[in-house]
Protein backbone atom coordinates (compact mmCIF):
# COMPACT_ATOMS: atom_id res chain seq x y z
CA UNK A 1 0.00 0.00 0.00
CA UNK A 2 1.46 3.33 -1.05
CA UNK A 3 0.01 5.01 2.06
CA UNK A 4 2.37 3.24 4.39
CA UNK A 5 5.62 4.79 3.12
CA UNK A 6 6.87 4.74 6.68
CA UNK A 7 10.14 6.57 6.30
CA UNK A 8 12.24 6.46 9.48
CA UNK A 9 12.55 9.84 11.22
CA UNK A 10 16.34 9.38 11.10
CA UNK A 11 16.25 10.00 7.31
CA UNK A 12 14.80 13.47 7.78
CA UNK A 13 17.47 14.39 10.32
CA UNK A 14 20.30 13.13 8.07
CA UNK A 15 18.81 15.04 5.13
CA UNK A 16 18.70 18.18 7.28
CA UNK A 17 22.39 17.94 8.19
CA UNK A 18 23.34 17.33 4.54
CA UNK A 19 21.38 20.49 3.63
CA UNK A 20 23.13 22.50 6.37
CA UNK A 21 26.57 21.35 5.18
CA UNK A 22 25.65 22.32 1.60
CA UNK A 23 24.46 25.73 2.85
CA UNK A 24 27.81 26.34 4.58
CA UNK A 25 29.62 25.07 1.47
CA UNK A 26 27.84 27.57 -0.78
CA UNK A 27 28.71 30.47 1.58
CA UNK A 28 32.37 29.40 1.84
CA UNK A 29 32.68 28.82 -1.92
CA UNK A 30 31.38 32.33 -2.61
CA UNK A 31 34.12 33.85 -0.38
CA UNK A 32 36.77 32.65 -2.86
CA UNK A 33 37.20 33.94 -6.38
CA UNK A 34 37.08 31.06 -8.84
CA UNK A 35 36.67 33.46 -11.77
CA UNK A 36 33.83 32.30 -14.01
CA UNK A 37 33.32 29.12 -11.97
CA UNK A 38 31.59 30.81 -8.99
CA UNK A 39 28.15 30.86 -10.65
CA UNK A 40 28.22 27.19 -11.80
CA UNK A 41 29.43 26.10 -8.32
CA UNK A 42 26.63 28.03 -6.57
CA UNK A 43 24.01 26.68 -9.00
CA UNK A 44 25.28 23.11 -8.66
CA UNK A 45 24.99 23.32 -4.85
CA UNK A 46 21.49 24.86 -5.12
CA UNK A 47 20.34 22.11 -7.49
CA UNK A 48 21.76 19.44 -5.15
CA UNK A 49 19.91 21.00 -2.20
CA UNK A 50 16.69 21.10 -4.24
CA UNK A 51 17.11 17.41 -5.10
CA UNK A 52 17.57 16.59 -1.37
CA UNK A 53 14.42 18.53 -0.43
CA UNK A 54 12.25 17.16 -3.24
CA UNK A 55 13.37 13.53 -2.93
CA UNK A 56 13.48 13.16 0.85
CA UNK A 57 11.48 15.93 2.54
CA UNK A 58 8.72 15.79 -0.09
CA UNK A 59 9.02 11.99 -0.38
CA UNK A 60 9.15 11.89 -4.18
CA UNK A 61 11.75 9.15 -3.67
CA UNK A 62 8.95 6.95 -2.35
CA UNK A 63 6.20 8.30 -4.66
CA UNK A 64 4.47 6.42 -7.47
CA UNK A 65 5.89 6.78 -11.02
CA UNK A 66 3.05 9.18 -11.90
CA UNK A 67 3.95 11.43 -8.94
CA UNK A 68 7.56 11.48 -10.10
CA UNK A 69 6.51 12.48 -13.62
CA UNK A 70 4.38 15.35 -12.23
CA UNK A 71 7.21 16.53 -9.98
CA UNK A 72 9.79 16.39 -12.78
CA UNK A 73 7.35 18.12 -15.18
CA UNK A 74 7.42 21.46 -13.38
CA UNK A 75 11.21 21.60 -13.36
CA UNK A 76 11.36 20.43 -16.99
CA UNK A 77 9.07 23.28 -18.11
CA UNK A 78 11.31 25.70 -16.22
CA UNK A 79 14.34 24.32 -18.09
CA UNK A 80 12.53 24.88 -21.43
CA UNK A 81 11.78 28.51 -20.50
CA UNK A 82 15.33 29.24 -19.34
CA UNK A 83 17.03 27.43 -22.23
CA UNK A 84 15.04 29.09 -25.00
CA UNK A 85 15.13 32.58 -23.45
CA UNK A 86 18.83 32.48 -22.70
CA UNK A 87 19.67 30.99 -26.09
CA UNK A 88 18.49 34.35 -27.49
CA UNK A 89 20.12 36.65 -24.97
CA UNK A 90 23.42 34.81 -24.58
CA UNK A 91 23.97 34.30 -28.30
CA UNK A 92 22.88 37.74 -29.56
CA UNK A 93 24.53 40.19 -27.17
CA UNK A 94 23.05 43.27 -28.80
CA UNK A 95 19.43 42.34 -28.11
CA UNK A 96 19.58 44.48 -24.94
CA UNK A 97 21.36 47.40 -26.57
CA UNK A 98 24.81 48.44 -25.51
CA UNK A 99 25.13 48.50 -21.69
CA UNK A 100 27.07 51.77 -21.82
CA UNK A 101 24.21 53.74 -23.37
CA UNK A 102 21.03 52.26 -21.86
CA UNK A 103 20.00 53.83 -18.52
CA UNK A 104 17.05 52.85 -16.35
CA UNK A 105 14.69 55.86 -16.22
Amino acid at each position, binding site marked *: *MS*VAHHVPAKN*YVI*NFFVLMILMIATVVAARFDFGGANLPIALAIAITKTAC*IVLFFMNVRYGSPL*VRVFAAG*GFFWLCIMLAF*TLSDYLLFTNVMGSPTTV*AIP
Partner: protein
Amino acid sequence: MSSNSVPEIGPSTPYFAGHFEDVDQKIESDILGMWLFLAQEIMFFGGLFTAYSVYRHAYPDIFQLGADQLNYLMGAGNTMFLLISSLTMAMTVYYTQHGQFRKQLLCFLATMIFGSLFLVVKYFEYKEKWDHGLVPGLNWDPHTVDFAAANLTSPPENLKLYFILYFTMTGLHALHMVIGIGIGIAIFINMLLWKKYGPNRYMAVEMFGFYWHFVDIVWVFLFPLIYLI
Protein backbone atom coordinates in the same frame (compact mmCIF):
# COMPACT_ATOMS: atom_id res chain seq x y z
CA MET B 1 0.77 1.98 17.73
CA SER B 2 -0.92 -0.96 16.02
CA SER B 3 -3.19 -0.29 13.05
CA ASN B 4 -6.38 -1.71 14.59
CA SER B 5 -6.45 0.43 17.78
CA VAL B 6 -8.15 3.84 17.70
CA PRO B 7 -5.53 6.63 17.39
CA GLU B 8 -5.54 9.49 19.90
CA ILE B 9 -5.67 12.08 17.10
CA GLY B 10 -7.59 12.29 13.82
CA PRO B 11 -10.57 10.18 12.67
CA SER B 12 -10.83 6.60 13.90
CA THR B 13 -11.02 5.18 10.38
CA PRO B 14 -9.18 6.20 7.16
CA TYR B 15 -10.74 9.36 5.82
CA PHE B 16 -11.65 9.86 2.15
CA ALA B 17 -14.48 11.65 0.34
CA GLY B 18 -17.25 9.68 -1.40
CA HIS B 19 -16.03 10.28 -4.96
CA PHE B 20 -12.83 8.31 -4.33
CA GLU B 21 -12.58 4.52 -4.70
CA ASP B 22 -10.35 4.14 -1.65
CA VAL B 23 -7.92 6.05 0.54
CA ASP B 24 -4.94 5.28 -1.72
CA GLN B 25 -6.65 6.94 -4.67
CA LYS B 26 -7.44 9.98 -2.50
CA ILE B 27 -3.81 10.28 -1.41
CA GLU B 28 -2.48 9.93 -4.95
CA SER B 29 -4.95 12.58 -6.18
CA ASP B 30 -3.92 14.97 -3.41
CA ILE B 31 -0.23 14.59 -4.25
CA LEU B 32 -0.76 14.98 -8.02
CA GLY B 33 -2.96 18.06 -7.55
CA MET B 34 -0.41 19.63 -5.23
CA TRP B 35 2.42 19.01 -7.70
CA LEU B 36 0.36 20.66 -10.46
CA PHE B 37 -0.06 23.69 -8.20
CA LEU B 38 3.65 23.68 -7.42
CA ALA B 39 4.47 23.38 -11.15
CA GLN B 40 2.70 26.67 -11.80
CA GLU B 41 4.52 28.16 -8.80
CA ILE B 42 7.78 27.01 -10.39
CA MET B 43 6.81 28.80 -13.61
CA PHE B 44 5.73 31.88 -11.65
CA PHE B 45 9.06 32.23 -9.85
CA GLY B 46 10.85 30.89 -12.96
CA GLY B 47 9.79 33.96 -14.94
CA LEU B 48 11.52 36.16 -12.37
CA PHE B 49 14.63 33.98 -12.35
CA THR B 50 14.70 34.20 -16.16
CA ALA B 51 14.50 38.01 -15.98
CA TYR B 52 17.27 37.95 -13.38
CA SER B 53 19.49 35.82 -15.68
CA VAL B 54 18.94 38.06 -18.70
CA TYR B 55 19.69 41.32 -16.83
CA ARG B 56 22.60 39.83 -14.93
CA HIS B 57 24.12 38.83 -18.25
CA ALA B 58 23.58 42.34 -19.62
CA TYR B 59 24.89 44.25 -16.55
CA PRO B 60 27.31 41.97 -14.65
CA ASP B 61 29.07 44.84 -12.81
CA ILE B 62 25.76 46.33 -11.61
CA PHE B 63 24.73 42.97 -10.16
CA GLN B 64 28.11 42.57 -8.47
CA LEU B 65 27.78 46.03 -6.91
CA GLY B 66 24.21 45.26 -5.83
CA ALA B 67 25.17 41.98 -4.15
CA ASP B 68 27.93 43.85 -2.26
CA GLN B 69 25.23 46.02 -0.63
CA LEU B 70 23.58 43.00 1.00
CA ASN B 71 24.57 41.33 4.26
CA TYR B 72 25.24 37.71 3.30
CA LEU B 73 25.35 36.61 6.97
CA MET B 74 21.72 37.67 7.35
CA GLY B 75 20.90 35.68 4.22
CA ALA B 76 22.79 32.64 5.54
CA GLY B 77 20.99 32.89 8.90
CA ASN B 78 17.67 33.02 7.09
CA THR B 79 18.62 29.96 5.03
CA MET B 80 19.33 28.16 8.30
CA PHE B 81 15.94 29.18 9.75
CA LEU B 82 14.15 27.86 6.66
CA LEU B 83 16.07 24.57 6.64
CA ILE B 84 15.29 24.01 10.34
CA SER B 85 11.62 24.79 9.70
CA SER B 86 11.61 22.30 6.80
CA LEU B 87 13.00 19.61 9.11
CA THR B 88 10.38 20.31 11.80
CA MET B 89 7.69 20.33 9.06
CA ALA B 90 8.78 16.89 7.85
CA MET B 91 8.78 15.71 11.48
CA THR B 92 5.26 17.13 11.94
CA VAL B 93 4.03 14.93 9.08
CA TYR B 94 5.91 11.97 10.56
CA TYR B 95 4.36 12.39 14.02
CA THR B 96 0.91 12.96 12.50
CA GLN B 97 1.23 9.67 10.62
CA HIS B 98 2.34 7.97 13.84
CA GLY B 99 -0.41 9.56 15.96
CA GLN B 100 1.81 11.35 18.49
CA PHE B 101 -0.19 14.39 19.54
CA ARG B 102 2.33 16.36 21.65
CA LYS B 103 5.25 15.92 19.25
CA GLN B 104 2.99 16.80 16.32
CA LEU B 105 1.99 20.06 18.01
CA LEU B 106 5.52 20.96 19.14
CA CYS B 107 7.10 20.32 15.72
CA PHE B 108 4.42 22.32 13.93
CA LEU B 109 4.76 25.17 16.40
CA ALA B 110 8.54 25.16 15.82
CA THR B 111 7.91 25.32 12.06
CA MET B 112 5.76 28.41 12.49
CA ILE B 113 8.27 30.04 14.87
CA PHE B 114 11.26 29.54 12.56
CA GLY B 115 9.15 30.78 9.61
CA SER B 116 8.34 33.91 11.62
CA LEU B 117 12.02 34.40 12.56
CA PHE B 118 12.78 34.42 8.83
CA LEU B 119 10.31 37.30 8.38
CA VAL B 120 11.77 39.19 11.35
CA VAL B 121 15.26 39.08 9.78
CA LYS B 122 13.71 40.09 6.46
CA TYR B 123 12.16 43.13 8.15
CA PHE B 124 15.55 44.31 9.46
CA GLU B 125 17.09 43.77 6.02
CA TYR B 126 14.40 45.81 4.28
CA LYS B 127 14.70 48.53 6.93
CA GLU B 128 18.46 48.75 6.31
CA LYS B 129 17.86 49.10 2.56
CA TRP B 130 15.35 51.87 3.27
CA ASP B 131 17.83 53.73 5.52
CA HIS B 132 20.54 53.42 2.86
CA GLY B 133 18.17 54.83 0.24
CA LEU B 134 18.17 51.68 -1.87
CA VAL B 135 14.42 51.38 -2.56
CA PRO B 136 13.73 52.25 -6.22
CA GLY B 137 10.70 54.49 -6.76
CA LEU B 138 10.05 55.20 -3.07
CA ASN B 139 13.37 56.18 -1.51
CA TRP B 140 16.25 56.22 -3.99
CA ASP B 141 19.33 57.98 -2.62
CA PRO B 142 22.22 55.49 -2.63
CA HIS B 143 24.57 57.57 -0.45
CA THR B 144 26.31 54.49 1.02
CA VAL B 145 27.30 53.00 -2.35
CA ASP B 146 30.84 53.66 -3.56
CA PHE B 147 30.21 53.99 -7.30
CA ALA B 148 33.71 55.31 -8.06
CA ALA B 149 35.44 52.20 -6.69
CA ALA B 150 33.15 49.88 -8.67
CA ASN B 151 34.45 51.06 -12.12
CA LEU B 152 31.02 50.68 -13.70
CA THR B 153 30.71 50.38 -17.47
CA SER B 154 27.01 51.32 -17.37
CA PRO B 155 25.24 54.32 -15.76
CA PRO B 156 25.09 54.17 -11.90
CA GLU B 157 21.28 54.62 -12.02
CA ASN B 158 21.14 51.08 -13.36
CA LEU B 159 21.71 49.84 -9.81
CA LYS B 160 17.95 50.41 -9.52
CA LEU B 161 17.49 47.40 -11.77
CA TYR B 162 19.21 45.13 -9.28
CA PHE B 163 17.11 46.41 -6.39
CA ILE B 164 13.86 46.20 -8.39
CA LEU B 165 14.60 42.51 -8.93
CA TYR B 166 15.77 42.11 -5.31
CA PHE B 167 12.56 43.53 -3.84
CA THR B 168 10.28 41.75 -6.32
CA MET B 169 11.85 38.33 -5.85
CA THR B 170 12.43 38.40 -2.08
CA GLY B 171 9.13 40.26 -1.59
CA LEU B 172 7.12 37.60 -3.43
CA HIS B 173 8.98 34.93 -1.50
CA ALA B 174 8.20 36.71 1.79
CA LEU B 175 4.54 36.98 0.71
CA HIS B 176 4.54 33.20 0.25
CA MET B 177 5.93 32.87 3.79
CA VAL B 178 3.18 35.13 5.16
CA ILE B 179 0.48 33.09 3.36
CA GLY B 180 2.13 29.89 4.61
CA ILE B 181 2.12 31.09 8.21
CA GLY B 182 -1.54 32.18 7.83
CA ILE B 183 -2.61 28.73 6.60
CA GLY B 184 -0.32 27.20 9.24
CA ILE B 185 -2.14 28.99 12.04
CA ALA B 186 -5.47 27.57 10.76
CA ILE B 187 -3.97 24.06 10.69
CA PHE B 188 -2.49 24.55 14.15
CA ILE B 189 -5.88 25.53 15.58
CA ASN B 190 -7.42 22.40 13.99
CA MET B 191 -4.67 20.28 15.56
CA LEU B 192 -4.82 21.84 18.99
CA LEU B 193 -8.57 22.20 19.54
CA TRP B 194 -10.10 19.34 17.55
CA LYS B 195 -7.18 16.91 17.03
CA LYS B 196 -8.29 16.81 13.41
CA TYR B 197 -5.19 15.26 11.84
CA GLY B 198 -3.89 11.82 12.72
CA PRO B 199 -2.76 8.52 11.15
CA ASN B 200 -6.08 8.21 9.31
CA ARG B 201 -6.15 11.78 8.04
CA TYR B 202 -2.85 13.52 7.43
CA MET B 203 -2.90 14.74 3.82
CA ALA B 204 -3.78 18.35 4.74
CA VAL B 205 -0.65 18.47 6.91
CA GLU B 206 1.51 16.72 4.30
CA MET B 207 0.28 19.01 1.49
CA PHE B 208 0.95 22.07 3.63
CA GLY B 209 4.43 20.60 4.09
CA PHE B 210 4.84 20.38 0.30
CA TYR B 211 4.07 24.10 0.04
CA TRP B 212 6.44 24.89 2.89
CA HIS B 213 9.28 22.85 1.35
CA PHE B 214 8.67 24.50 -2.01
CA VAL B 215 9.02 27.98 -0.50
CA ASP B 216 12.27 26.69 1.04
CA ILE B 217 13.47 25.59 -2.43
CA VAL B 218 12.80 29.06 -3.87
CA TRP B 219 14.99 30.54 -1.12
CA VAL B 220 17.70 27.93 -1.82
CA PHE B 221 18.07 29.57 -5.25
CA LEU B 222 17.43 33.17 -4.18
CA PHE B 223 20.13 33.11 -1.49
CA PRO B 224 23.21 32.34 -3.63
CA LEU B 225 21.99 34.27 -6.68
CA ILE B 226 21.08 37.49 -4.86
CA TYR B 227 23.45 37.56 -1.89
CA LEU B 228 26.55 35.60 -2.80
CA ILE B 229 27.56 36.00 -6.44
